[in-house]
């Protein structure tokens, strides 16, 4: 059954998988697998190269946070400097400001952007006319498909001094507000545009979960005398709980990585006091000011916190509600 193989030596690049097997026995098994499936393995060579170069090399590249970087030198830096850059950012007041801003924006996003799709899905689920339901859904997905640049552009246009929001305020007799220039407004603007962009899309998984709930459960609840509200409370919500928990864990995991691109597009030096987050600070310190090691140290710190958060959330939810990502 085995396909004929002309050369005994395997093509380059496919020793990769075998290297990670520690057990001594299956050496010959690997040889047989290579002889039989070398064509399949050869298809994996380029994708593996992609992962190694563009995903794993940057992970290793983080060592630059502990090494001195020379312009024009190696991307891994020149010599070890230990925790010098970590100490530097820990004593940097700007770092603590962007850290606080990150927690604020991340927290607000979690509080508003996590529950709204659930509520929206429950409301949509109560709509009887299918055409109406489909129409509302289609419209609410729309912002998700647009470039974040367009979303930012729309947000800024709506809130401009000559934009619709200010004209509505004017008609109500209110002075115009320079939303874009005022630090006090940034969090509201950010979270508001995030809701506008993601709420509809977020309902997809919940609506899918809702369709899998057994009709008999509602029947039984009705026989037990439960009204609509009680049915939602005792049947619908428990039914979508696994989905809720999974998405909550994912949201907690991306807590620190609050919309880097959106902040970069919406903020300006006047709103830095509330808008500047860790990732935008990393961008400015690294790419704009060429302090690569310093910026990499902050970025690594952010990534580690993110990893700790998602692991903690996952463990907690496995212990308490029995649902987890892994």
């Amino acid at each position: 059954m085995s396909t004929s193989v002309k050369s005994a030596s395997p093509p380059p690049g496919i020793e990769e998988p075998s290297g990670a097997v520690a057990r001594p026995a299956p050496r010959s098994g690997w040889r047989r697998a290579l002889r039989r499936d070398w064509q399949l393995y050869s298809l994996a060579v380029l994708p593996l190269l992609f992962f190694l170069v563009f995903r794993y090399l940057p992970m290793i590249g983080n060592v630059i946070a502990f090494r001195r970087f020379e312009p024009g030198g190696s991307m891994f830096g020149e010599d070890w400097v230990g925790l010098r850059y970590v100490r530097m950012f820990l004593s940097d007041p700007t770092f603590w400001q962007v850290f606080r801003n990150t927690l604020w924006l991340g927290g607000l996003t979690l509080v508003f952007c996590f529950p709204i799709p659930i509520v929206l899905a429950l409301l949509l689920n109560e709509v009887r006319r299918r055409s109406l339901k489909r129409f509302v859904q289609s419209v609410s997905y729309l912002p998700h498909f647009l470039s974040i640049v367009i979303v930012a552009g729309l947000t800024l246009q709506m809130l401009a001094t000559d934009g619709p929001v200010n004209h509505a305020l004017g008609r109500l007799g209110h002075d115009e507000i320079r939303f874009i220039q005022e630090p006090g407004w940034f969090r509201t603007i950010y979270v508001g545009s995030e809701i506008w962009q993601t709420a509809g899309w977020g309902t997809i998984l919940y609506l899918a979960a809702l369709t899998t709930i057994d009709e008999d459960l509602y029947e039984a609840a009705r026989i037990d005398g439960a009204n609509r509200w009680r049915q939602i409370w005792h049947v619908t919500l428990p039914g979508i709980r696994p989905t809720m928990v999974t998405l909550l864990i994912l949201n907690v995991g991306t807590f620190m990585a609050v919309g880097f691109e959106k902040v970069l597009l919406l903020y300006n030096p006047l709103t830095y006091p509330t808008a500047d987050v860790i990732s935008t600070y990393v961008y400015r310190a690294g790419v704009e000011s060429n302090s690569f090691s310093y910026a990499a140290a902050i970025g690594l710190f952010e990534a580690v916190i993110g990893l700790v958060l998602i692991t903690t959330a996952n463990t907690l939810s496995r212990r308490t509600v029995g649902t987890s990502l892994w």
Partner: protein
Amino acid sequence: MVKPSRSYRVFQGVNGVILTLVVLVTLYPFVNILARSFSGERQIRAGEVALWPKGFNLTTYRIVFQDSMFWRNYGNTVFYTVVSTVVAMVLTTCYAYVLSKKHLRGRGLLVGIAVFTMFFTGGLIPNYLLVTHLGLKNSVWAIALPNAISVFNLLVMKAFFESLPTELEEAAQIDGLSTYGILLRIVLPLSKAVVATMVLFYTVSFWNSWFSAFLYMDHSDLMPVTVYLRNLIAGATGGGNAGAGTAELSQVGASIQAVTIVLTALPIICVYPFVQRFFVSGVMLGAVKG
């Protein structure tokens, strides 16, 4: 079926109102920007433009259409999107096909290599240094290569390949087709639906992307149209020009922004009705199998 109670009927009414509001709030910015793009500048400034153009004119469209940089950047977007999507499709299809072979030795490891990158990534600075050191700056490869495989798309495609009947491939093997032949002549023709979906996923994401180009392209004539738009926005809102003298200038910027937003969003809005269903089913497939 019990007759709906009175309170439930009230709820239905309230629900309808809420959902109508959701639709209005979602659509209003689009309608408004469209109206602005056709309106006179004086009317925009006076706040007369809400749902319908006031002082209808095409001047701003003419200004944008005559801007050679706009067209060059628009062309760049098309070029970057096509090249990146082709690279992404080739790599994703190859790897997804390999991963779908359950008998393959080391398959678990190959899956793990991909999935791990969903949870941990290198970060902005190491990525920037890597692309710079590889000499990819100012070329389409700086956009195409670092984003060549989306693990999410990979898993969707793998799930689809796994669902194909194995008998067909076995028969083809007995008939003497090589693995490459099976992939090209048996599997891909059977996978038109998932291939089309993946092409859509990648095309939309590359069309919409801006940050890679913003990072790695040094000249404005290499930028995609998203960065062109970003520069318009940044120019009109930067904190530096809050002075009174720039009111006129930022006003001109506002109507040009409206036109540029409309033209950049147009291709996506046009394919949206067709794209949407694919995306929704793709997301659900990915969520179930991922």
